[in-house]
């Protein structure tokens, strides 16, 4: 039980390291360096000595492997570099943006899973009845309407009916004013949860319909147990592996969706940070945010892998 866990964590760290290398190399492949890119034409006005001094300050004068390891070293110490546009440490920018995105991600996943599992179970238990049709209809809607459309419609609706206009200045943290904060995050999360819920709904429904026809489900029904016990202990439990897998995939999409939704709802999260830093050519920030997205994805997938062994005893012995 413990050894596979260690092995998984090791493989997670290896993947993370790989991502570091890839991100590093890609950004190094761009012509020029971060300094000339940020100074633009002004770079020509500086003397060689000045340029070298700046290069040294940003650490771009060293050899490539040296740069990589000093970058890695400082990152391990929580130093993500300095933003080229705001001159603030990247860790400060990320530190204020990350909680917002995390909250958004967690809330959309929770909403998506509740919607998806709820409608999926109801649909599978009443196949081709109206309950199922409602769920299927919602799924088609959630899968076919992109989140920027849902988000825009929602925000227009909120603005015209409740006179609510999102603004990054008015954003409050979860711990400053939880109630107001949840209101601010709820609609962006709802926007994202449609797509997530639709995919999870389809997976849940298909898995449960299949499991219902398996022999052990018949055994369970043959015991005369209550409907609730049958549905959750036998049907749902066995559908859980499929549902978890789909949730992991959806989490991957969610990271992309967060960028769009944060922009629409003006949430000061990582997604918005990414967009502004790309427009500003703020490479240290782009680099860090990319890494954080990748790390989030890898961590979630490792957690999902571990959850399989918890759910399914057949995967444990291996």
């Amino acid at each position, binding site marked *: 039980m413990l050894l596979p866990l260690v092995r998984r964590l090791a493989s997670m760290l290896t993947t993370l390291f790989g991502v570091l290398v890839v991100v590093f190399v890609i950004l190094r492949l761009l012509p020029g360096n971060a300094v000339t890119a940020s100074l633009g034409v002004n770079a020509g006005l500086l003397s060689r000595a000045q340029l070298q001094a700046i290069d040294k300050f940003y650490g771009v004068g060293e050899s490539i492997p040296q740069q990589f390891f000093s970058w890695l070293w400082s990152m391990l110490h929580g130093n993500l570099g300095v933003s080229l546009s705001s001159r603030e440490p990247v860790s400060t920018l990320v530190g204020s943006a990350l909680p917002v995105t995390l909250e958004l991600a967690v809330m959309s996943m929770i909403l998506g899973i509740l919607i998806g599992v709820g409608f999926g179970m109801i649909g599978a238990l009443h196949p081709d009845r109206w309950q199922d049709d409602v769920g299927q209809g919602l799924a088609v809607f959630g899968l076919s309407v992109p989140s920027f459309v849902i988000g825009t419609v929602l925000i227009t609706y909120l603005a015209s009916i409740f006179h609510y206009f999102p603004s990054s200045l008015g954003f409050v943290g979860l711990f400053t004013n939880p109630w107001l904060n949840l209101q601010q995050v709820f609609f962006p999360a709802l926007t994202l949860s449609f797509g997530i819920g639709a995919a999870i709904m389809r997976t849940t429904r298909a898995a449960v319909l299949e499991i219902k026809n398996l022999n052990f489900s018949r055994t369970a029904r*043959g015991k005369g147990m209550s409907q609730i016990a049958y549905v959750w202990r036998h049907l749902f439990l066995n559908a859980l592996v499929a549902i978890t897998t789909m949730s992991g995939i959806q989490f991957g999409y969610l990271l992309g969706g967060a960028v769009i939704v944060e922009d629409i709802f003006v949430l000061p999260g990582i997604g918005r940070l990414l967009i502004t830093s790309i427009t500003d050519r703020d490479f240290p920030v782009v680099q860090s945010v990319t890494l954080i997205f990748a790390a989030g994805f890898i961590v979630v997938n490792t957690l999902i892998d571990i959850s399989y062994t918890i759910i399914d005893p057949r995967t444990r012995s291996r």
Partner: protein
Amino acid sequence: MTEILLSLRGLVVGLRHGHDVSPIVRGVNLDVAPGERVGVVGESGSGKTLTMLSVLRLLPSPPLEILDGEILFAGENLASASERRLREVRGAEIAMVYQDPMTSLNPLLHVGYQVAEALKAHGASTIQARETTRDALRQVGLSDPERVERSYPHELSGGMIQRVMIAMALAASPRLLIADEPTTALDVTIQQQILDLVLDIQTTTSMAVLWVTHDLGVVARLVDRVVVMYAGRVVEDAPTRELFRHPSHPYTAALLASLPGTQHSHRSLLHQIGGNPPDPTRLDGGCPFRPRCPFAIDQCAHEEPPLLPRGESRAACWREPDSWLP
């Protein structure tokens, strides 16, 4: 008339596609008295399993459903019972051991938990259920019940799972045990042990048994009466001793002739029975056994014979056994 526990009356089970129906079980009549042991034999595909599953209303539906007939259990028609009432009956009054035990347990739950679940569903406390579970597992000859309880299905062998399934059915002390080929994965000694156990339970309770099997040896040892099924119908219903001595249907005679080491005189006559059972959805209205029957007469092609009294037995054959038995 003696008291009847289970009575199938004209049971029809089949596929329904829109308004079209194709029956597979085509009007089965079958009575089981309290404490009686009835064997059900017949070739693969003759509808034994579908008949048994209908009793508990556990048919895979869709596509299969009960199209007609009554399932009277202690006088109550289960064919029209509510799901709520069925839950009370299932596992408590009627328990079933399913064919294909390897896939009949939930792969994600401990075996002991699943056996206990059947008891708890009908009001046993957790402690009671655990004790009964352990006793039941020991009774079916599992030497280390504690270990079996803590195992997951994939950690047990086919024979062990089969015994777990039998233990699960017996643990609830049902009034009727339906066992669908319950001993196929067991070796002969354990099979004997299971049969002894069932016989033993019967001496103290009035549990009735419906035992589906391919093994006429088991039939001879365990059951009082045998029902032979062919192409979705009962073709012979006879006391066990009578069936072995004087089969009343050519198909029964063929089954007996195929037993190794039998010295039945009609063996030579019937050894040529080959071929396959008919597709139950494509019958021509005559006797379904006719294509394989060496004794067929003209009438057999036009009319399907009903169950007719033949001495102590009943058989669905137009011809008296005397006319074809040597």
